[in-house]
């Protein structure tokens, strides 16, 4: 049999590729097989990341496996209709609200992959002031714990008051 690509050399390599459940088989010569590998772009991940992530989601030790949804019936996101089964199959979420609906599934795996579940980077303009306050309070609370541990009660009292004040303050005045 001749190579299906160059039609010049004898085919001695049999290639099967499966992309999104579409199977394609080719009889190629060695040179064409090598070239096809070269032509596939460098940015294609060697292992489809979302699907790999999905396999992690379905295998979390403390949670039911992928075959048993967390809730009874068809557990799905009410905003976009993505079901838990779909999510566990391809690892992609359907909309922003999915993050709430599938929180129990996501939390432990995000923690494992990123080491944390608290965003510390950029914040869109509209959320900025409010978030700054939350972060400041969290920061102060850590300092407070530290002060208590060091038995620096004077500073602890001061920190506690600042936190209280910040938490009492109504939503900041714009901008």
């Amino acid at each position, binding site marked *: 049999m001749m190579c299906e690509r160059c039609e010049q050399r004898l085919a001695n390599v049999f290639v099967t590729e499966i992309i999104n459940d579409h199977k394609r088989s080719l009889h190629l010569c060695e040179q064409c097989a090598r*070239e096809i590998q070269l032509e596939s772009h*460098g940015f294609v991940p060697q292992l489809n990341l979302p699907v790999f992530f999905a396999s992690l989601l379905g295998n979390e030790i403390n949670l039911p496996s992928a075959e048993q949804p967390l809730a009874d019936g068809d557990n799905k996101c009410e905003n976009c*209709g993505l079901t838990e089964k779909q999510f566990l199959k391809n690892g992609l979420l359907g909309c922003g609200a999915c993050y709430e609906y599938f929180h129990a599934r996501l939390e432990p795996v995000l923690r494992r992959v990123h080491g944390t579940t608290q*965003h*510390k980077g950029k914040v869109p303009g509209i959320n900025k002031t409010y978030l700054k306050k939350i972060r400041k309070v969290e920061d102060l609370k850590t300092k407070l714990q530290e002060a208590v541990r060091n038995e620096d009660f004077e500073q602890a009292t001061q920190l506690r008051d600042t936190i209280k004040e910040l938490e009492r303050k109504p939503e900041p005045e714009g901008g």
Partner: protein
Amino acid sequence: MAVKDTINNAFSCWMGDGPESDVVISSRVRVARNLVNLPFPHLLTSGKGEEVIKLVERAIEKESLKEKIGFLELIRLGELVPLERKILVEKHLISPDILKDYQRAAVVLRSDEIISLMVNEEDHLRIQCFLPGLQLHEARKLVDCLDGELEKTLPYAFDEKLGYLTTCPTNVGTGMRASLMVHLPGLVMVNQIKDMVTNVTKLGLTVRGLYGEGTEAYGNLFQLSNQVTLGKSEEDIITNLIFITRQIINQERIARQALFKERREQLEDRVGRAYGILKHAHVISSAEALRLLSDLRLGIVMQIIKNIPACLVMELILHTRPVFLVKITGKEMSSFIRDVYRAKLVREKLSQAEKI
């Protein structure tokens, strides 16, 4: 139409000279953003997909955005022929993944190709900036600026705890992927590349060959990028990436100097042979061209070869990819004929450069 110029020209601004460009070819920063209340792209019907494109189209028309970023052009991928789409992939302006559902996708470009934006790839928006050499902070600033302008009109899906919400949970948080394209022929020659890859992976970066499969990197071109997107600020992620890359740059330079000092004749011979073959060959495969162009670039940045600019090498690497050859000749070819055209193109480009 500017996008047509982009397609007809193999040269992109990011191939030019930049800081540390003896080792670092280019810097890229990309962020993922999604619009609130709309299903993510893989669940969009083509009608809803068009809705996202229209929203972006309106957003880039805003005067304040034009003032800060300049004129941006939006092209629906369905309006291009398959070859043109493939060329945009080769130029790293769109990802190969977007081609699976190109009918509902679009690309936004500034004519210098430094700033681009994919609409309806895995996420609604992927904002990207490409600069030559080591300029990650600068690239981030540009992305940040465009992002800031877009969010004035486009409401983003954002969570106070998790950050920017992305289709794939592995990108959640900053939604940012920063990457550097580096040329490491020295480390490959002294057999240190495997150790480098292992070490860098331990430090939270991903390394992969730009062309080729697995550990094999044709052309000795590698891409380094951050793995984690959540729990660290953009600034920290980039600083870390630069910090590690600086060590790699040093190692690469040390390897090159060692080769020059201890095996000068072999090195000069290798570079000279590469140059000679590229200048005179009549049939050249993609893999061979990549290997020889890598040697040539090394020779240029080490000043063994003086009359060819380093940026021409990157242009040739792109120009000799199969899609570009098809574009130039206007027809599909067998691999042998392609090898003939490739050799012809390289010969012509090199002799043109020598005359200047």
